[in-house]
């Protein structure tokens, strides 16, 4: 037969095969969950007053215009980058509120405003997060595939009183699937008063790849800065002394550096291993649908805002350029990431996985988050110029506004909503409140299911979805508000530390560190007891909000 005649047929077959393959590669469970998560939104639209719908639609149009314009000025026309920036957006939103009140779409009251804001945020936030997560899952988990040659790597492990933990962390690093001749592990003992130094030294004695340096106690930032003096690698990886890295984590975390020269730092995915209590399971669900997926969304713009202290990687020269870690915030991981971003580098996320021990009691969680949230506010205030300076591109136009809403509007709005709910209950509308609760729980439930499906997490975590609507959520909102007030009234705050499970078992008083006080300027010669501990629990990412109303 004439090959010219056959060709189109063959081509057609190929296309059909290709199409079949494409269809087979679609992850249908995610599709089903993503589509089902849209059902409650659709129902909500159906019962909304037309005016509210117009108001929402107008705001969504405004935000889309802003996003589109941001893309255009960052990618194509940087000469216009000062036009319609964050200030412009703030003015536009204010005008928008005035306009919808004038049009009668919104009653001029705080409650109505918060109500509208919450609904829009739920729409934008959940839909956006769900969509990005879904998209990520469909196109493949990461665009960076690890391949040789692997760069010279130095892992820094800052440790203060991490006996019983630091050895495990070092062993997990030695167990990683990374070329032995390219890996150097430096444990930094920050003046521990327990057996941390001895525990790490035993590994240093047994392996050429491990070394231990010790110094006077000075805090985590100080330990990391000190450790850098002994690091010879081109890539610096920081690992908390209570974390356990996945065997292929190091390969994954260096992959983005090879792929893109503009990448200055790379984040990992944090997983909690001690899931044996309500409070740790809630945290895992929070990590699954909040932190990890949220980070993937920002990855598209190269503006991941926190490289978690549990496991993160930096180019050596980038860390040197920004003079590494500063002493002036409580969340040095968020701070240093902001510095890297401000220096003009992209910050990306990898598929590297790290296991960490989450605070196991509400009290410990409280102390951990006290530090994170205070540190978050301190860092945002420290880097406030990013909010106003349009030369920071996506960081200025997208990441910061999003973050500000999350840190300032949502926690406060949550309490307005709570007061309204209390009023509804007092007025006898218990059923309505119950209905609202069930409704929003079902949204969170479906989104959580999508997150669990994508992250390959444990389905039992779904049981905790209602707590992300009521209970766990308000705990964090209240803490956020408290921390904001703390930072505004006493800018210099000390560390708060959660007790360690395995140390508590050994010594019941290990975690009993007194309530932080507003400390004076850094003490010139801190004694081991008085100095800030080189706390290893980090990752100051604000958790994605599960606002229900």
């Amino acid at each position: 037969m004439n090959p010219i005649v056959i060709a189109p047929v063959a081509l057609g077959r190929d296309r059909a095969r290709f199409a079949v393959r494409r269809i087979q590669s679609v992850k249908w469970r995610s599709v089903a969950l993503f589509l089902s998560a849209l059902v409650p939104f659709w129902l909500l639209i159906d019962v909304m007053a037309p005016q509210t719908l117009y108001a929402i639609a107008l705001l969504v149009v405004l935000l889309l215009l802003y996003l589109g314009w941001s893309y255009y000025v960052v990618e194509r026309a940087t000469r216009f980058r000062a036009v319609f920036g964050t200030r412009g957006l703030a003015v536009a939103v204010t005008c928008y509120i005035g306009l919808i009140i004038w049009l009668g779409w919104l009653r001029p009251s705080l409650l109505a405003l918060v109500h509208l804001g919450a609904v829009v945020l739920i729409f934008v936030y959940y839909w956006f997060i769900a969509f990005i997560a879904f998209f990520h899952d469909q196109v493949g988990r990461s665009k960076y595939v690890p391949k040789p040659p692997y760069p010279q790597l130095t892992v820094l492990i800052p440790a203060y009183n991490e006996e019983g933990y630091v050895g495990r962390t070092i062993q997990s690093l030695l167990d990683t699937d990374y070329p032995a001749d390219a890996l150097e592990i430096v444990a930094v003992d920050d003046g521990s008063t327990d057996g941390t130094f001895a525990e790490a030294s035993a590994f240093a004695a047994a392996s050429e790849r491990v070394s231990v340096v010790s110094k006077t106690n000075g805090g985590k930032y100080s330990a990391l800065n000190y450790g850098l003096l002994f690091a010879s690698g081109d890539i610096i990886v920081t690992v908390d002394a209570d974390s356990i890295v996945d065997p292929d984590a190091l390969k994954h975390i260096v992959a983005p550096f090879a792929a893109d020269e503009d990448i200055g730092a790379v984040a990992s995915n944090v997983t909690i291993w001690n899931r044996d209590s309500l409070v740790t399971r809630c945290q895992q669900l929070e990590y699954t649908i909040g932190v990890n997926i949220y980070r993937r969304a920002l990855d598209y713009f190269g503006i991941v805002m926190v490289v978690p202290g549990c496991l993160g990687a930096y180019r050596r020269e980038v860390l040197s350029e920004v003079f590494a870690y500063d002493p002036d915030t409580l969340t040095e991981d968020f701070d240093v990431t902001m510095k890297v971003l401000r220096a003009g580098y992209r910050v990306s996320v990898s598929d590297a996985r790290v296991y960490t021990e989450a605070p196991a009691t509400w009290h410990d969680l409280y102390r951990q988050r006290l530090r994170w949230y205070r540190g978050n506010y301190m860092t945002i205030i420290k880097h406030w110029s990013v909010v106003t300076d349009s030369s920071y591109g996506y960081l200025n136009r997208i990441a910061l506004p999003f973050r500000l809403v999350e840190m300032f509007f949502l926690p406060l709005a949550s309490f307005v909503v709570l007061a309204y709910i209390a009023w509804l209950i007092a007025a006898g509308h218990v059923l309505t409140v119950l209905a609202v609760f069930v409704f929003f729980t079902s949204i969170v439930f479906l989104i959580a299911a999508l997150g669990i499906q994508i992250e390959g997490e444990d389905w039992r975590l779904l049981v905790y979805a209602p707590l992300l609507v009521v209970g766990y959520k308000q705990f964090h909102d209240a803490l956020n508000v408290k921390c904001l007030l703390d930072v505004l009234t006493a800018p210099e705050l000390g560390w708060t530390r959660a007790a360690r499970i395995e140390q508590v078992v050994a010594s019941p008083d290990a975690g009993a560190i007194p309530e932080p006080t507003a400390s004076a300027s850094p003490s010139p010669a801190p004694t081991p007891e008085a100095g800030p501990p080189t706390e290893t629990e980090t990752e100051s990412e604000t958790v994605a909000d599960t606002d229900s109303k």
Partner: protein
Amino acid sequence: MSSLPSTCPVCRSRTLTAAHIDEHDCGHVAPEDDFADGCEKCNRQVSADELTRLQTVGRCLECDSLATDDFDLNLDVAPPLPTVTFPTLPSRADNLNWLPARYVPESRLARQLLSSALVVMVLLAGITGAISVMPMLESEPATVAAGEPEWEEYDSIVLFRNDDVQAWYNQDELRDVNQVFIDEEVPVTLGIIPDTNGEAPLTDDPDLCTYLQSLETDYPGQFEMALHGYTHEPVTEFYGASEFGDLPADEQRERLEAGEELLDECVHSPSSTFIPPMNTYDETTVSVLEDANYTTVSGGSWFTDAHFDGNETVFEDGDLVHIPETQPFENWTAYEERVLEAEESADNNESDEIVVPFEDLETLTDSFDEAHAANDVHVVMFHYQYFTTDERVEQLELLVQHTKDEDAGFLTIEQFALGLETGTVEQTDDGWRVLEPAHVAIAAEQAEAAAADRGTEDGDAEQSLANITQRVGR
């Protein structure tokens, strides 16, 4: 604490010297010598008290690298790695581990099917949850949108009354006039004639009834459907002319019931206001209306002033609230004069064609201003059929806009009367205060009262909510 090695770990040189590592206040960590010319991070000169000594280490004089204790160099044979135990780490593979082992299938395909079934269950549970509470939620955004009732204060109250709505007649004018109220978002009471001259029953005009029902549905609380007599014929000469006044009670009751029957069939929610044709009615009418559960009667103030001796615009008599019109839009005196003139000129045909003249706009606005200044209730009566030109419709629009420019509250006649009764409308020292939206507030009050009557305390909030839902959703 110091840790000085004997050998450089990099070049194995044994020429090492001690180096002090310091930290500056700004957080910069470097060997002491580096701070001699100031801090390279913060570009400041450095004084000794700004530095904190972190450690003293070895610096190789050959290769300049820093070194601390070096363990492997001190021993000929490296000791084995210490043993550590790891906790059980969660992994993707043990997703189904929480199921008892006997339920987890062996084959990969079966396990995938099980996972898929789990996903389906989860999404069904989620969707079912959302859908099942939707009926309860429907009222929620509506009440939020309509607003929880809030007190508003006004200097005066304005009620508009559009009389003579009837089958077949001047339907375009009716729509034009109603559109004014829709556009201005001002409530109005429609006086509906059930069977004009006994020849045009409402129910024969399906378009009119459909239209009236659409007004009730689309603009809840804005259009009141009031009964305006039965045939609207001048049956007696009571105060000049009346359909009800001076008739025996039985006859009045029959007319009322016949009218009610037609109106009930035509609209969703007939109101409890009665508008007697020709604005006249007697005590018998009041008692018949009372028996039939009416709350309000709206005649003319010229008539009530004369017949009921009332000094107030709004008054109660025989358990009924009397809210007579205080300002006709049409100039009936001028009209009568023209009719007389025409009759004198003995041209009856001409008298039929006389257009009912309107009061001029100034008279109408002055009348409102006067009532407004006195914190009074101003009831404007008009007849839609005379709004035959754009200019005439515009005059109505201008009047409505004029009243809106002032701090006046707008209600239907029934809302005003029921508001007074339920306490959602109150007279104050300098005007009025109204719980708005009035129809929502009244419905809630009535529901609460009904629930209290039944003595079922548990049900009252739900009942009132259900009632609000019903009212708002209608």
